[in-house]
């Protein structure tokens, strides 16, 4: 079987996952998307039903919304760290741009259009349009900030980039804090915070956004634009010599990353209802970065998983509130010692691939006798995931 199969192949088997018949049956493209869409829809409906039915209480559903927001933040930061290979430390800055942009837009526009706070809860069409508009505006605000910081910052590398983005996020925070007092605006509410934001975030909205964001990042990375970004990470000099406009693609990755962070910021505003600049400090950026590094740089599933765990863990450990930060730190140390590449490395999950394996009866336990090939396959999977 597999054993003989690999015998006649070159040292590195390019087709290690081929089935016994030699022809590996694949799912047609529309089917792949349909399957994933159905799964996402089922999960969304299931979650919504559980919330409506009372299986998930109010507190738990708020935590779930937080989880979704952090997933968006982590996968968006993953574009800049995992795919582009840079180390920006200012993600909270983009998040706050999005949060303020979105909430100010929604507050002002709902006055103009006469949409009341109740409409956001019941979800009238007008309110829905306003919310989606607000999220896009939030994303655009963050994207503009991303361009402003990205063009100078991306000329630098490594530590220097980290510090300049860190400083920029602090600038944003201080501006949010003082802009009203200094310039006499009535925008952000300063240190007292921005209040009166309608609570528009809901389980469906947040996880709908998670699905859309993950889809868009996935499709971007598996196109010529994504390949150019990955090429810059792997070897910038070679990428340039191969005709990749490195400045453009670095900025693109950075701006897309900022845009989605802004969307997450908007959702965050709708979830908590009050915005204070202090929330978007340096620690928030670090928190998001930790999620990405812990999950595995370059792995979307890894980012999502670790965002989930690291959001739920502190909540679950509330009973031991004195010790929970210790537990958090210990988890980080252990992971970094035993799996420095992150929990999932660069592995990414693909439902269609699993289904294809089942279709071809290509199961892991069938290759138990063939250790080297199994290892090869592992590498191939990670290579595959990069696509």
């Amino acid at each position, binding site marked *: 079987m597999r054993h003989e199969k690999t015998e006649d192949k*070159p*040292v*590195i088997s*390019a*087709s290690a996952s081929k089935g016994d018949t030699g022809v590996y049956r694949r799912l047609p*493209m529309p089917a792949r*998307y349909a399957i994933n869409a159905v799964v996402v829809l089922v999960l969304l409906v299931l979650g919504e039903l559980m919330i409506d039915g009372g299986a998930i209480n109010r507190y738990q559903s708020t935590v779930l919304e937080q989880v979704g927001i952090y997933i968006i933040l982590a996968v968006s930061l993953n574009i800049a760290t995992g795919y582009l290979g840079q180390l920006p430390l200012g993600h909270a800055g983009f998040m706050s741009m999005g949060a303020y942009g979105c909430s100010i837009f929604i507050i002002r526009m709902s006055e103009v259009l006469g949409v009341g706070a109740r409409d956001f809860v019941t979800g009238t069409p007008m309110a829905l349009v306003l919310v989606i508009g607000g999220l896009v505006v939030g994303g655009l605000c963050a994207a503009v900030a991303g361009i402003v910081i990205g063009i100078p910052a991306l000329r630098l590398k490594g530590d220097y980039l980290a510090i300049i983005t860190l400083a920029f996020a602090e600038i944003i925070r201080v501006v949010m804090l003082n802009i009203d007092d200094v310039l006499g605006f009535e925008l952000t509410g300063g240190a007292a915070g921005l209040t009166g934001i309608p609570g528009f975030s809901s389980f469906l909205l947040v996880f709908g956004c998670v699905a859309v964001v993950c889809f*868009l990042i996935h*499709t*971007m990375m598996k*196109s*010529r*634009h994504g*390949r*150019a970004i*990955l*090429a810059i*990470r*792997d*070897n910038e*000099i*070679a*990428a*340039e*010599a*191969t*005709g*990749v*406009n*490195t*400045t453009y693609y670095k900025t*693109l990755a950075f701006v897309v990353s900022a845009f989605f962070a802004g969307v997450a910021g908007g959702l965050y505003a709708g979830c908590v209802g009050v915005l204070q600049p202090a929330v978007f400090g340096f620690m928030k950026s670090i928190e998001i970065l930790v999620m990405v590094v812990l999950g595995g740089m370059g792995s979307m599933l890894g980012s999502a998983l670790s965002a989930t765990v690291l959001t739920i863990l502190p909540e679950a450990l509330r009973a031991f509130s004195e010790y929970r930060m210790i537990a958090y730190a210990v988890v980080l140390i252990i992971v970094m010692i035993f799996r420095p590449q992150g929990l999932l490395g*660069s592995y990414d999950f693909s439902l269609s691939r699993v289904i294809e394996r089942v279709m071809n009866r290509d199961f892991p336990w069938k290759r138990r006798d063939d250790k080297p090939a199994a290892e090869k396959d592992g*590498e*191939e999977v*990670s*290579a*595959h995931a*990069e*696509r």
Partner: protein
Amino acid sequence: MPSDKRKRRSVLVQMETPNLIPERDLGTIPVLQAEHLGIDFGGLTAVDDFNIAMGKTEISGLIGPNGAGKTTIFNLLTNVYKPTRGTVLIDGYDTAGKSVAEVNRMGIARTFQNIRLFSQMTVEQNVLVGFGNTMSTHLITDMLRLPGHWRQEAEFHERALELLDIFDMRKYADTQAGNLPYGAQRRLEILRALATGPKVLLLDEPAAGMNPAETEELMENIQKIRDEFQIAILLIEHDMSLVMGVCEVVGVLDYGKIIAKGTPEQIQNDPRVIEAYLGKQEVK
């Protein structure tokens, strides 16, 4: 794109040394031309007064002792280093002020002495990065998976596999580039450069680390590329069997200066070349 104003219509003619340019290329615009090219690093003149004019389908070699400035010349031709003096014209267009990526799009592609692949990407993806500038889908088309995206991906998937066929590498298409055997990595680097659609291909020590059989194969491949793609190839090499076997013109570089230029036979018997490599005979 360079404007027509910048186009220089200098045409290849037989110059001071006869038989340097292959006859088939005479009367055309030189595909690569450098005039009085030079660069100083601080007080050190790394390259001084380098001149070259290459015909459309010429294979040339650049040899010289270690530290003579060969790779520096490649870096000057591709604008990695900005030349202190002199000009580089690619197919008649001046490269001054262009970025490395723009120079690549003007028609010059290169490989590296120490292999620089996108090692975490698959072989096919490596080639597809090279095709990147030929592909034209907008970011939105790609992100929303509109029909244009599928059409283009399918087209370039085929083209990438066809390109891999040249070196019989289709079987590696899904392999991670970093896991390839050494020889295949060198070949992939050449293919990736070819995918950018160059007019001139610069090969920096393509035979480094290869055994004689592999070098033999490489020689055939270099000629095959020239014949199939009708491009000019300039290569740096220490392996004399390769240089003498495949190059039509050889330039010898020492201390940043061209000390001799000619056909392989002329070079082999040139006393200046022997001196540069072996040193002067002491007179007792």
